[in-house]
């Protein structure tokens, strides 16, 4: 009994000793780490603050000749920066009732009506999400001492989504002209007066070269009727990461040969938004895309380029950044003969729930307008994920595209019902079956079954002249988590949609990539 007590005491003493030591060490380390905290050493260098780009509407300086004095390029840059910031902080203020930026970009007397307006909106819980997409600025007057400038900003296109509480009550857009007087105060060009005027500008639309066009429900390329027989393409080794270090034009060239030989005439590729550099598109990526398009042209393949892959914000304040992204890509290739169509976004209807249908549709609508402005030569489509959504924005696109992964036997019925409601050409932009029989899907589809599926589809296409693009050329070894999530059976399924297996052997379905 005594020895047991002794043991208990011993254990108690030892554990309490360890406990005290642990606490002590922890305490000392806390004190030391507290003493080591302080200003970041890099702050000694006074590095300039990197301002994140949040608002990049299209700004064109129309005319800077004014009776006051010639204006310097640097001053123009400063004015542009502060003027756009003035718009941006106002948009933030009306969206979040956060007026903190207003004081920097509006003089005291100009702030007053803004504050009053926001106060009222806050009371009524009216929140206005807005942005402007273009500014065409000319200088009316610039004073001799460089302290005062009068600008006219024509054709300012403003988009507004008006919310009452959490509920979107309506969307609207205005195009107006503004005359603005700015003063240079404390190093900021601040708005002293801004007066809205009736819009007197008319946008000039450049006449299209017509590399591709749509007449009725037919697609024409170089004035020849065009039947899309295509495939969604990723190189086997680098699916969903096509433009990285693994980019190899030789591999792509060989793949294009395979496709051409198989009788296809179109490929659909994807241009990831972030990978390409968001609002500042990287030249290296554009070069790679250029190589790919040149190669497609050389091999006689047309390309449907899907923009904004993996993009998912859609908020009004983010619009201008996506416009700049599209502008840089689309204007670069606006005369490229290989491109058939710009696909604005892959399966945007999947974002309806999380981002709000109105937001997604408004973004798409404006993006179509923007892209048409940058490139009137190519067609525009949206890759809807189901046949139900396909009819959305029919009037805005040139080609109606949808994806079909449902029962093959119902396809014709669905297709005909869509066709009866739709006047534009219809493209089945994705379809396919994964031959995923294996460990993760013991009762999955065999390669033979996959072949049969494609054979059946091709029969339908032949009978009805349906434009099609299948999914996809290769079975992939790796599928990134962002595509289908991280569940292994889902990934497994996505790996086996190809016509050629991961060893490079043609699967039975290869024969039925198209009809002849």
């Amino acid at each position, binding site marked *: 009994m005594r020895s047991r007590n002794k043991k208990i005491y011993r254990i108690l003493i030892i554990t309490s000793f360890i406990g005290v030591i642990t606490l002590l060490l922890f305490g000392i380390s806390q004190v030391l780490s507290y003493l080591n905290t302080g200003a970041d050493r890099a702050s000694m260098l006074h590095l300039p603050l990197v301002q994140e780009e949040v608002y990049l509407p299209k700004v064109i300086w129309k005319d800077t000749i004014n009776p006051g004095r010639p204006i310097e390029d640097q001053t123009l840059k400063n004015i542009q920066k502060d003027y756009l910031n003035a718009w941006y902080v*106002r948009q933030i203020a009306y969206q979040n009732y956060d007026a903190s930026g207003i004081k920097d970009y509006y003089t005291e007397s100009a702030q007053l009506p803004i504050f009053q307006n926001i106060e009222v909106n806050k009371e009524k819980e009216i929140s206005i999400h807005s942005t402007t997409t273009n500014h065409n600025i000319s200088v009316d007057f610039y004073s001799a001492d460089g*302290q005062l400038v009068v600008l006219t900003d024509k054709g300012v296109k403003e988009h507004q989504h008006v919310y009452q509480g959490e509920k979107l009550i309506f969307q609207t857009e205005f195009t107006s002209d503004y005359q603005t007087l700015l003063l240079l105060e404390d190093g900021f060009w601040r708005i002293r007066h801004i007066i809205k005027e009736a819009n007197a500008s008319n946008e000039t639309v450049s006449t299209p070269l017509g590399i591709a066009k749509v007449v009725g429900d037919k697609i024409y390329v170089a004035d020849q009727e065009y039947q899309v027989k295509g495939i969604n393409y990723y190189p086997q080794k680098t699916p969903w990461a096509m433009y990285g270090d693994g980019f190899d034009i030789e591999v792509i060239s060989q793949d294009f040969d395979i496709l051409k030989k198989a009788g296809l005439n179109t490929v659909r590729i994807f241009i990831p938004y972030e990978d390409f550099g968001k609002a500042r598109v990287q030249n290296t990526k554009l070069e790679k895309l250029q190589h790919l398009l040149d190669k497609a042209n050389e091999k006689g393949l047309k390309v449907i380029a899907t923009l904004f892959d993996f993009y998912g914000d859609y908020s009004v304040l983010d619009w201008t950044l996506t416009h700049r992204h599209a502008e840089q890509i689309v204007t670069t290739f606006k005369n490229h003969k290989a491109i058939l169509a710009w696909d604005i976004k892959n399966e945007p209807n999947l974002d309806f729930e999380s981002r709000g249908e109105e937001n997604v549709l408004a973004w798409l609508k404006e993006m179509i307008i923007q892209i048409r402005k940058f490139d009137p030569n190519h067609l525009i489509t949206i890759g809807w994920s189901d046949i139900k959504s396909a009819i959305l924005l029919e009037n805005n696109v040139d080609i109606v595209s949808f994806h079909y992964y449902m029962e093959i036997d119902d396809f014709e019925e669905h297709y005909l019902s869509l066709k009866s409601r739709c006047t534009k050409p219809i493209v089945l932009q994705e379809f396919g079956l994964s031959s995923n029989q294996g460990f993760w899907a013991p009762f999955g589809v065999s390669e033979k079954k996959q072949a049969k599926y494609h054979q059946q589809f091709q029969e339908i296409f032949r009978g009805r002249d349906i434009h099609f693009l299948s999914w996809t050329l290769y079975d992939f070894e790796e599928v990134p988590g962002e595509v289908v999530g991280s569940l292994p059976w889902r990934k497994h399924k996505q790996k086996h949609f190809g016509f050629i297996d991961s060893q490079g052997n043609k699967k039975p379905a290869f024969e039925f990539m198209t009809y002849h």
Partner: protein
Amino acid sequence: MDQKQKYNKLLLPIVLIFSVGFCALISRPKEISATLLTTQKTFLAGNEIALDFKLNMPAQTQLFLHTSLGATSITSENGRFIVPEFISRKKGHVDFQLYHNSERIFQGKINIKARNKGIKEIETYIGPTSIIAGGKDFTMHIVIPTDAYDNPLPDSTTVQLKHQFLENEKEKTLYSKDMIGWSAVYSYAKSGRMLLSSKVDQTTSKEHSIDIFPSLPEKFEITSQREHPYADGNQITTFTTSILKDEYGNSISDGTLVTFLIKDEKGLILRANGSTIHGIATGKILHPDHQSTWEIQAFVPGVAESNTIRLAYTSVLNNFKVAFTNNYRKITVGPILSFMEQLIPNGAIVKLKIFQNHAVHETKVKTSLDGMVIFELEEGFYASGTYDFEIETMGVEKTYTNIKLQ
């Protein structure tokens, strides 16, 4: 039974009538439409703005107003909307859209104009606030006339700009454009202060002033003053400019830097600086300590230059005494006598150059005290042997060769 059938017969038409009635009620078009009763399109800032809509059925509607500085939405049950003051007070176009259940049923725009009576204040910007005399340089006098609600007055508002300078009082009437009325005010030939003011309608501005500074200086003259012509390295020579003036006769601004460049006969350049007060700059420099001839010219660098003057300095002595003692290890120079045979003022530099085998071994420099300088050559430093000495002061040099130190 008959009775019942009769009722049924009666009932049938009644039911029919009712059902048709209901049908009519249900199928009655739910389309709501609105017309704008207010015909006025242009309003004066600050006046109450009411927009009246006639709806084809009573309903709650929302009016979205989009203005120069923002947007808001107001709700009405009866189709009458009073535009809030913060909007009706501000000049500019106002777009409005009428909504019913998120559906736009009417849109239009009104224009709010600035009031032209009761101008609150005249905002004036004048710059640059200092200009140069002569009529080439100018300042801009910019006026932003605003109404009581801080709206800029419309283009072609009459603006009077006035300025006064010395005996000149001028007035100019012009019409505003792009929110401002402005004029370039050129300087006059004289320097001084100009006062400016402006007037719009009956409202006058404050008094504003700018400075007109003299223009760039023209060619000028310099003179020199010195106590004696001797190169004693002790007295100071002063150079003085004439009054520096610009081409219009204004003496140039105080503090203008003048540089006096002095070149001796060997081409060495010395320099003295002075800044102007009332147009005059002075530069001071120590006399040379040996016979020399100076050429002096003054500059306002990059702008103006003076004439060149010459000054000759004569030597204060022809000879001086040197005594060797202590086996030539102690060299006593002096007494050094100046031009009146007075002891040279303390601080005269005496240089002793020691040569061995025709190479300089050391140069010793000392300053005089009571006309005397003593050099000592310690044994530890100067081993016994043959040396040459060269002693120089006030531009006079003496040489001693083959001196044997022991």
